[in-house]
């Protein structure tokens, strides 16, 4: 659990530190707004995530199943 806390804090500090980076205006976001830049799994990966949930012990943190809803791990 200590290791988990350290990882979580590190990630939080990184993302907070990143807040001091460039203030990107809306007209500068042509690349950021590209469909391929979306910060989530593709829709086509839905069934891939499903078989990975069944075949692997870990799940979650990727927008897919975290537990329950199926006869999986």
């Amino acid at each position, binding site marked *: 659990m200590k290791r988990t806390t350290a990882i979580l804090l590190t990630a939080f500090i990184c993302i907070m530190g990143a807040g001091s980076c460039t203030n*990107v205006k809306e007209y500068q976001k042509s690349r*950021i707004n590209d469909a391929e830049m979306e910060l989530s799994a593709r829709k086509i990966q839905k069934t891939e995530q499903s078989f*990975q949930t069944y075949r692997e012990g*870990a799940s979650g943190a990727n927008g897919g199943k975290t537990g329950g809803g199926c*006869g999986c791990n």
Partner: protein
Amino acid sequence: MKKICLTVVGLYIGLLSAFSQSADSANYKSRKLKFEEANLVSSYYRQTGNNSAVEGGVGSEKLSDIANVIDVKFTKYDKRDRKHSFTGEVGIDHYTSASSDRIDTKANSSASSADTRIYPSLSWTMENEQKGTTIGLHASSSFEFDYTSIGFGASFSKKSADKNREVSIKAQAFLDQVSLILPIELRNGSGGRDNDDYKSASRNSYSGSVSLSQVINERLQLAVIADIVKQDGFLALPFHRVYFNDNTVHSEILPSSRLKIPLGLRANYFIGDKVILRSFYRYYQDDWGLTAHTIDLETSVKINPFLSVTPFYRYYNQSAVDYFAPINVHKQGDAYYTSNYDLSAFDSQFFGAGFRSAPPKGVFGMQHIGAIELRYGHYTRSTGLNSDIISLHLKFK
């Protein structure tokens, strides 16, 4: 006379100007329910292996699955200019399994050799574009022969004023029922034939999720995702056999609670004008002793503005849960035991490629098909399990 003419002409010109004035339609948003989009994802999955949990960690893991998921989204604006989105989704999976067929070892082919799972869901979100907030509600269900699930959840997200940062929180619960279908030789102590009157046990899962996304610069954006999941109830699968070191056969038994903590990091970077690097890392830990690392890298190469090719590679590594052992290792007196190789120590690789096309006039000139995506992947696990999956996504507008 001149005054009358001038007055009439003036009135006429005034009338013309009144009718030629155009209403300010720049900010007009229709309040009618509007079809936004529909998506169809279909896939074919096929796997082979020799560590079937139904046969105690040995035997064929041959399985094939055809999955279809369709979702339809409608939107409308209310009087306060808030955008409401309504999404209905239904999925149907049909699978055939050599290992499930061995739940009853006396039958040449039993009813458990194939099954169909149906999983409908509904969701609603309300976005206030002025405040940068979105709230949502979600309800889901899943039905298959030995498992039913009812789920519901809520979410809230807020963007910063400059829309470079977004914080989201989500809570979900699944209230499930597992049918207690034991291996044939463990039913009623008599090794009798199938009895359709199965008892059931509950399995409940509660999860919370926090995510924070940040635009770093014009080419890079990151997201950190943290989940926490608590499960309780019957967390094993009753038709999984476990053979002890004295050759006696038992049904898998696992603890009645489980706490999972996955942490994820996404980073997407636009290289030059044609290449996008999408990356994902996840660290996972639970109180059954399993820790896991996942690294997923995908490169999207834009052949032209409407066509891209996407090769990908995923590496996964996990340690075994504390209760796993292969066949004939567990012994009398063990409180919990499983020989399910999905919970053993292994690493795996998943790699392949896809292509995506979204031409402005529609796919193959068909205006209502906005995009098509085709993707193939090969999965290989250090336990000897291998699988292939091919998927198709069609977007309708």
